[in-house]
């Protein structure tokens, strides 16, 4: 397995956006993530799958240091974004999060207007010099999140008044507006109905053109539909990582096979 991964890295070394080496995460005494090595390619959708509690969300939250907000968590190992260790003492997590955006499991728009929701990131990062530029960013982001046509006439209305699927796309627009390089998505469709889910999935496929997308999902069908690379986590270990097609058709590890055929999880 190691050999395979080395080979793969050799092939597309240049495209690697995030590379994690020997990552360990502890929650107090609990060893939540054990020795994970993974390479996330640029302009690719990478899916993390695995049974509940396997650590996939925990690992995702390591990638933009959201785990910092949990006092008892401790991260060891190296996670490199474009060759720089994001856990280096000199790194300001706030700056990092502007480059690695995140969309959460439950839609969590701010209790502000739709416009202000999207404009918040650009405002605090000073991405727009004037109102016109800000308007442009908001429109572009909402278009990017396939939401513009639905909300263009009611930008001043509260973001929390939208439907669940629209709220989640608003959150994606909000994340996109800060012009990140990587977009992390933590089960973005788990609170959505099938139609909203398929809209968000289509959106993820489009976002791939500009960002590297990492998505945690419970649904193997979703992973198969949207991702090019898939990582299977089990009990804190990264069991298998490779092309999505390979993982779902020719899993190397018996645990992966058990999971995708529904025997564990």
């Amino acid at each position, binding site marked *: 397995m190691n050999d395979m991964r080395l080979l793969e890295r050799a092939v597309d070394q240049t495209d690697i956006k995030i590379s994690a080496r020997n990552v360990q995460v502890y929650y107090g005494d609990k060893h939540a993530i054990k020795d994970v090595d993974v390479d996330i390619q640029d302009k690719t959708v990478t899916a993390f799958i695995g049974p509940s509690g396997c650590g996939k969300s925990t690992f995702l939250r390591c990638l933009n240091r*959201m785990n910092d907000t949990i*006092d008892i968590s401790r991260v060891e190992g190296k996670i490199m974004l474009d060759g720089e260790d994001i856990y280096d003492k000199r790194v300001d997590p*706030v700056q990092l*999060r502007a480059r690695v955006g995140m969309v959460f499991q439950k839609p*969590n*728009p701010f*209790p502000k207007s739709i416009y202000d929701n999207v404009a918040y*990131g650009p405002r*605090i990062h000073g991405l727009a010099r004037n109102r016109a530029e800000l308007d442009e960013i908001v429109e572009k982001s909402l278009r990017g999140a396939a939401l513009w046509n639905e909300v263009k006439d009611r930008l001043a209305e509260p973001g929390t008044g939208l439907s669940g699927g629209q709220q989640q796309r608003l959150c994606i627009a*909000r994340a996109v507006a800060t012009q990140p390089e990587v977009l992390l998505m933590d089960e973005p469709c788990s609170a959505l109905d099938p139609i909203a889910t398929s809209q968000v999935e289509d959106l993820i496929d489009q976002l791939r053109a500009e960002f590297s997308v990492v998505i945690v999902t419970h649904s193997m069908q979703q992973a198969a539909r949207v991702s090019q690379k898939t990582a299977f986590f089990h009990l804190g270990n990264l069991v298998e990582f490779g092309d999505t097609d390979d993982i779902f058709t020719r899993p190397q590890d018996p645990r992966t096979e058990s999971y995708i055929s529904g025997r564990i999880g």
Partner: protein
Amino acid sequence: MTDATLSAAPAAAPKPRASLLIADERTRKRNAAESRFRAYGLSAIGIALIALVVLLSSVLTDGIGAFRQTYLTLPVALDSARLDKNGNRDPEDIKKATTLTYGKLLDQAVQNTVAQQGIAIAGLTEKDVSDLVSKEASAQLRNRVIANPELIGQTVDARVLVNGRVDGYYKGRVSMDSAARDSNTSPAQLQLADALKDKGLLATQWNWSFLTNPDASDQRPEAAGVGVAILGSLYMMLVVLVLAVPIGVAASIYLEEFAPKNRLTDIIEVNISNLAAVPSIVFGILGLAAFINFAGLPQSAPIVGGLVLTLMTLPTIIIATRAALKAVPPSIRDAALGVGASKMQSVFHHVLPLAMPGILTGTIIGLAQALGETAPLLLIGMVAFVKNFPAAPPEGLFDPASALPVQVYNWTQRADPAFFERASGAIIVLLVFLLCMNILAIFLRRKFERRW
């Protein structure tokens, strides 16, 4: 497992099917328990309401009299020979005339008026007649003349306070029977008052001066007011507002959002809860030791009262603010951090606005609590008799003043039942203030609460 259960089910003896129309034993028991609980709840609320009504009605019936006052209107000849011997209207000279002089003028005026109206004064000495007027009346007349020296030499119509017993007679506190046993008044004096009332010279009117007058001495309940107490309480609230709110809110934001969760913060948290439960008189002792004995601040001053009340209110504000901050869903913080906001931006842009209604309510409740606090103020000397109004802040914060709850306490200690009426009146004023603050809290809550 599921299969086993399914296959086992038909094997068991079929349960006789009960009718839905008849409640079974367990349902009846449950329903009875529920209706019992409702009855307990209703009776608890009923008792609370009755207690409230009794309290309010007793305070209102006792205290409403303080807002009405009996006055005698009579012409007073302001003899220039007595008030301004040099005749040059020099303010210094005018001030030399004491209340004693004015008292004599008033005595004369009362006797003249009674004689002019042809009222029989059988059984009353001259002194009894002139005692109809309050001892405070001469001081009020003197103040009027000092403010307006050209009145000297004229005969002015003065509206003067009558004494507390006569005032009490028209408010139902004093009766002919009690007057017969009273060394300060007599039935004949009350009859004289009745006669003056018939002539339209004596009337019981709305009494603004209760809200504006300072306290008065034991012999002059009719002149006592809550003016100094209201001002003192307002000054203290000002100090509490300026100190407790920023400190309390900043401390809670730090503890809730920024401080690491470790042993030290746990200890601090426990101690804040403990401080909220410390008897307020202990804060009074602390204030006496720290602010008066150590820091050398003056006694009876609103600044000291305000500082003590600040210490006392801080835990309340901190606990309320932390609860409000805790109630903000963590997803909002995640959302803000997720788009690259700093901790402080996430708190000030998103968490704080959402917590604002709770913070405001907690703060106002804390202030209201401070407004009604008595015990710590007794220890720092605010119970003293204060007749002079404090100056305007900030200097006025160091002048002696009273406070509303202390004024209530003070008046209930005095012998004359007229002061009991004043105390109840002061309670009404205090309750009105508290009501206003609570209405403000509700209003602000409505205004800032964004349900979207």
